[in-house]
């Protein structure tokens, strides 16, 4: 299934930058970065449980926000891309480098 993850991390208190970096790295392990604070993760439900718990234990619930959009299996019909930074579909696109 496809999960779209967006986040806002506050720099106001100490450790904001560290948390931001940390969250981005966790997301990178599971999906592709489509915009600065936006990740698309094509994962199975068990991976989603792991990813979610990692994120929730990393962010600061008093100042940061995390939003998850669960697009399900047939997400390809629900996502459009325009403009620069064309993204890669990890499972469907040919990976030839």
């Amino acid at each position, binding site marked *: 299934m496809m999960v779209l993850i967006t986040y806002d991390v506050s720099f106001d208190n100490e450790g904001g930058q560290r948390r931001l970096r940390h969250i981005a*790295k966790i997301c*990178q*392990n*599971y*999906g*592709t970065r489509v915009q600065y604070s936006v990740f698309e993760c*094509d*994962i*199975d439900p068990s*991976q989603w449980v792991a990813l979610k718990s990692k994120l929730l234990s990393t962010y600061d619930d008093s100042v940061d926000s995390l939003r998850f959009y669960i697009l399900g299996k047939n997400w390809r019909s629900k996502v459009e891309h325009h403009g620069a930074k064309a993204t*890669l579909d*990890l*499972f*469907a*696109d*040919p*990976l*030839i*480098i």
Partner: protein
Amino acid sequence: MKRLQNSLYINTQGAYLHKERETLVIDINKEKAAQLPIHGIGAIFCFGNVMVSPQVMGFCGENSVNLAFFTEYGRFLARVQGKQTGNVLLRRAQYRKADEDPVSVARNIVAAKIQMQKQVLQRHQRNHGNSVEFSQQITAINHVLDTLKHCADLDKIRGYEGEAASRYFSVFNMLLTNKDLGFEFSGRVRRPPTDPVNCLLSFMYSVLGNDISAALQGVGLDPQVGFLHQERPGRDSLALDLLEEFRAFIADRLVLTLLNRQQLKPSDFITETGGAVKLKDDARKLVLKEYQSRKQQKIRHQFLDEDVEIGLLPHVQALLLARHIRGDLQQYPPFISK
């Protein structure tokens, strides 16, 4: 439902593949060219001078990602195989299947082969008009295909294959539309080929066969243990099995194109004292170049419903065959183009 995992092909010479946390990073000229999470990848194929860090090798093992190395020209070199997919089990399953139940795979492969031969003939028919002899052979081939459907005997399957092949090659000469240079085909001759057309066919089959053998080793199958072809020391029987699907579609059509476009001349061949005909070096280069550019073309794979480069078809089919042997797919889906 098992998910179809993607394969990563690294063709860029000098690329460096390393690991960053749970992701694979490919550096080209010390710059990050791509970063991919490992969970979408089932296999990594490295062609030529590609460096891989030891951590990635271990990482691939842990995640049952199949990591294989090939020369720049596609000859298999080595493989690092994942723990869970352990090749011993796959190979045992392959041996067991080859001993106990080779018929279904063999029949699917032969059916695909005959179908592709028919398509070569039909293609000619569409482009150059019909002739009585042609439609006769096509009808006969159709008939062979029909009877093959219900055949459960390996020797009979081989018999049908032979019948279709002899019908196909009986009109092969008519597929050579440009006779100005005097290329003639009067039947398949091998070991050694004694005329240019047979020489080209043999050459293409062996190049293609090597590619297929490499692809099979890449997915962890034993290329020497086949279903349709009998085992013989030193013979890659399984590679020959898979080759059947591609003979007409890749090799025959390429040979016909080269000859009909007059890209090859009779002077590109030498006849040795024993009667064997060989390609000269420059001509061989030309053939390989054309083959390479053909490999780059994309085609819709009917079973996967995806566009696949022709050069990757052996890898795709090897993967599907491994899946069938492992029991993930009920039937082996051979390659058939539209």
